[in-house]
């Protein structure tokens, strides 16, 4: 279905329709491997993701799904092509502008949690708010609220090494949600968890999607991808399949 959209005329000040949260159009990422050798990690990827969707991006390692995730997460810029996020053309922004977009629009959940080990759960959740200048009191209230939403209201003062894997991932989810981002981007969120805890996190995602959050899940596990409503399969830097599953 995504393939029809890429012929849209690119006009100055063009923005995708309101319901489209993500539009990637002919996205290329080429790496120089030294000398004249170039590797295309992505070669012309296009699709739309609407608000409220729950999408899994699947593919084996080396398929380009990590590169795609980095581009969607505004951690990287494409070599070619365009990327709109929430009505904004973000594919041509500078480092600091991308930092602003990451802060405001994207909530990351990583496989390895990526929490600051020396900081308490509360402080970890406060971090995104620190970087947009939220005053201390409001910051604390919002972080506490976010932790309560993931049922960690009683663990706020704990440091990551005092928490179980599932609890750590829930802290990460709270951190991802604290700034009310338009997109929740999860990279193998259950990869470091046992299956019961993984199930717990996936249930949490279901709840979040039901509450209206847009979720993009990057994974190589079929049963995890099956929790999503739509699966985009990536292979050799291209979209191999794009299907609604539920």
């Amino acid at each position: 279905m995504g393939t029809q959209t890429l012929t849209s005329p690119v006009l100055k000040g063009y923005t995708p329709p309101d319901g489209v949260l993500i539009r990637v159009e002919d996205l290329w990422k080429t790496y120089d491997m030294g000398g004249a050798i170039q590797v295309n990690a992505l070669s012309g990827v296009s699709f739309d993701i609407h608000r409220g969707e729950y999408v899994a991006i699947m593919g084996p390692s080396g398929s380009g799904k990590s590169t795609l995730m980095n581009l969607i997460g505004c951690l990287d810029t494409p070599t070619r092509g365009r990327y709109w996020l929430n009505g904004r053309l973000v594919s041509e922004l500078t480092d600091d502008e991308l930092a602003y977009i990451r802060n405001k629009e994207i909530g990351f959940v990583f496989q390895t949690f990526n929490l600051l080990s020396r900081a308490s759960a509360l402080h970890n959740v406060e971090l995104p708010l620190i970087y947009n200048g939220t005053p201390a009191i409001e910051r604390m209230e919002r972080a506490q609220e976010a932790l309560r939403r993931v049922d960690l209201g009683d663990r706020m003062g704990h440091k990551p090494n005092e928490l179980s894997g599932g609890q750590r991932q829930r802290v990460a989810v709270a951190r991802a949600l604290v700034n009310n981002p338009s997109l929740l981007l999860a990279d193998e969120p259950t990869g470091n968890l046992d299956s019961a805890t993984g199930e717990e996190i996936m249930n949490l995602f279901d709840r979040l999607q039901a509450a209206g959050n847009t979720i993009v899940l990057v994974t190589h596990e079929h049963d995890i991808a099956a929790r999503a409503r739509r699966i985009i399969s990536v292979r050799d830097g291209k979209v191999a399949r794009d299907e609604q599953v539920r």
Partner: protein
Amino acid sequence: MSAISNAQPLLSRVKTRDGRATFSVAAREAFFIAVEALRAHKLRSFLTLLGVVIATTTLIVVMSVINGMNLYIADHIANLGANVFILDRFQWANTSDEEWIKEQRRNKLIRLEDYQFLKDSLQGYKAIGAEGWYGRNSAPPLRYRGHTLYEVVITGETPSMMGIGQQQVGSGRYFTEAEYDHSAMICFIGNDVVNEFFPNSDPLDKVIDIGGQPFRVIGVAQTLGKTLGQSQDSFVQIPLTTFQKLYASRPGIDIDIQANNADQMLELEDETRALMRARHHIPYKESDDFGLNASATIMGLWQQLTGSIFAITIAVVAVFMVVGGIVIMNIMLASVTERTHEIGIRKSLGARRRDILLQFVIESGVMAGAGGLIGILLAVIIAKLVDMVFTASVPVSAILVGLSLSTVVGLFFGIYPATKAARLDPIEALRTEA
């Protein structure tokens, strides 16, 4: 500042944040991170900061000692010359070595005849006195009933000297003109000599032995205390006439002239200069072959001395600070490498280059500032110890200079590591093992 230059296009393309609010929140966060990092690595931080600590301590101790001596001189030596100037063979503060050599060669001794001459010829002075010196290192020993006392300053004085300086009679009396004229074998002693020879008895009218000659004690001076750690009460004074008779090898004297008031000083100096030049037959183009020294001269000499001490200190402190700064830079570079993953996390959550830059620059500044604080603490302790045996007083300005200098060094040497941290690619940084 490259990070901030991007703010302009940001305005037009994406809604911007309130820069000032972000800055203060991020700066506070950076401060707490810095304090936390210091606490987490106490020993490492201390070793890292050693250079800055030593530099700050050196700076403040030297400033304190000089300040202490300044205070002392302002209190004592400068007061000693209240409207007094001293005619001596040499100018005390020389502008050049050349001049000093010249003075050594051609300046004549000031003699008792000069004193008589000035006393008769000068007009309108308040007091005039003369003294001859036997310094503490060469003076003959004092003896009393088997006790021997070395290193006591022996001077010969005119009776008029009592009243020109700070010296006061504690008990007994000073020499009379008659005793002076007759070269009486009497002495006026300082408190140290009393404590040594007469701990439990009255020294008056006792006879002590000075270099083999008997002298009767007629008076004791009021205690003067210590100047720069040297006791000022270790002296024996005898009439100048007696002094010159006994110590013929030391005919040189200096002459103290006291004016009635400050306004009269210059006038009196000029008069003295004219008289002495005429007496020494100096052609008008030649410079003086004697020295007129006022308290201003003493202060000048003093400032010349402290100036050079200070110049050396600044050089030493600068070297320490640069070394300390480089060590801090090194440890900050290590810290950036160590915390690459953390930087990646922060960047993924929306930290801009300048947020990361700020974090590491502030950390470096706080670290060096802490070194400065330790240095100040150490310096205050050392200054207290020095003050017990010598003199030192920590000026507030030294503390401020020490603290701000060390912090600035930290901020400066933090710039390079912080820039490296700020430029890290978020993906690469996240991929680094924590």
